[in-house]
């Protein structure tokens, strides 16, 4: 028993070492790809599921350009300004007609 045990222990260690080396190899290869220490590797994975939009990128400090509204957004606001302009134009004739000195000239006098 005393002779067998050291041999068995050596054999067992050898098996573990072989198995451990094999399994460890595959894991160690994956580590640098998926678990890269630099954050720049993260976006390289994202495109496989969908391209990030420009607006989803956080603005860089001091860069106003990254907040620039879309052309559609500005076009909608311009349309609202045009609508406001129509209201102002509609007010124009009413404002002019509210001049009492012009209006009273139409009153005339009784015969």
């Amino acid at each position, binding site marked *: 028993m005393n002779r067998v045990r050291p041999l068995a222990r050596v054999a067992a260690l050898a098996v573990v070492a072989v198995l451990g080396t094999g399994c460890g190899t595959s894991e160690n290869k994956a580590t640098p790809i998926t678990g890269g220490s630099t954050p720049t590797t993260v976006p390289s994975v994202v495109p496989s599921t969908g391209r990030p939009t420009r607006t989803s990128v956080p603005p860089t400090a*001091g860069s*106003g350009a990254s*907040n*620039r*509204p879309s*052309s559609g*957004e*500005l076009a909608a*606001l*311009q349309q*609202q*300004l045009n*609508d*406001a*302009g129509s*209201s*102002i134009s*509609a*007010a*124009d004739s*009413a*404002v002019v*007609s*509210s*001049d*009492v*000195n012009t*209006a*009273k*000239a*139409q*009153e*005339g*006098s*009784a*015969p």
Partner: protein
Amino acid sequence: MSGVTFRQIVIAVALVAVSTLVAVGSAGALGEAAGGGTEHCKGLDAKPIVHADALRRETTLADLVAKLQARKDPFAMNRGQIATLQQANTAVAALDSKIQATCYPTRAALHADASMLWTNYRVYWLRVPQSHAIEAADHLEEARTRLGTVAEKLSGLVGTHPQATADLEAMNTALGSADAKLGVAPTPGQSIAAVRNLQPAVDMTADTTVLEAAHNDLLSIYQQLMTARADGLKVISDLQG
């Protein structure tokens, strides 16, 4: 015939004379009631003029009512004004009917009634500018609301863009100046609110002063909103550049 006495003849003649007078008197009364152009009714030539003036006022009042009815009434001034205009329209039509149907013993009597068409209603001196001032405030409030909505959205877009920020500030300043005179719905500005309570008067001096103040403020509000809109367009241009 020989039995007819002188006294009987006198009585017969008197009866005929009285009958004639009664008949003539009745015809005259009928003429007055129908408004007929009997010779003793004065001012007949003025009646068509009065009628035309009454119709012109009725048309004007109806037009003012239609304009105010089409608006949104943000200051809660339109409804009362519409009722006032409709009452005036009814009263002008009734006065015209009375004048056309009446036989005036003197021209002065007709003039006194016809003058009511002018002094009691002041359609052009008061109701026209008053109604248009209310209508103008209504339109300008609508424009102000739209511009305010745009300014609010732009404030979230200008970021640190210096020119856009400056132009938006100018826009908000103009809107603030407009608010000072236009008021903020449902509360109208002071001069506009004062217009609402004006009534026709023989002496229109006070009414005229109030109407002039409101008109001047409306002109100023109009200019401020034009400026605010131009500034808003500049902000958009800044952001596009």
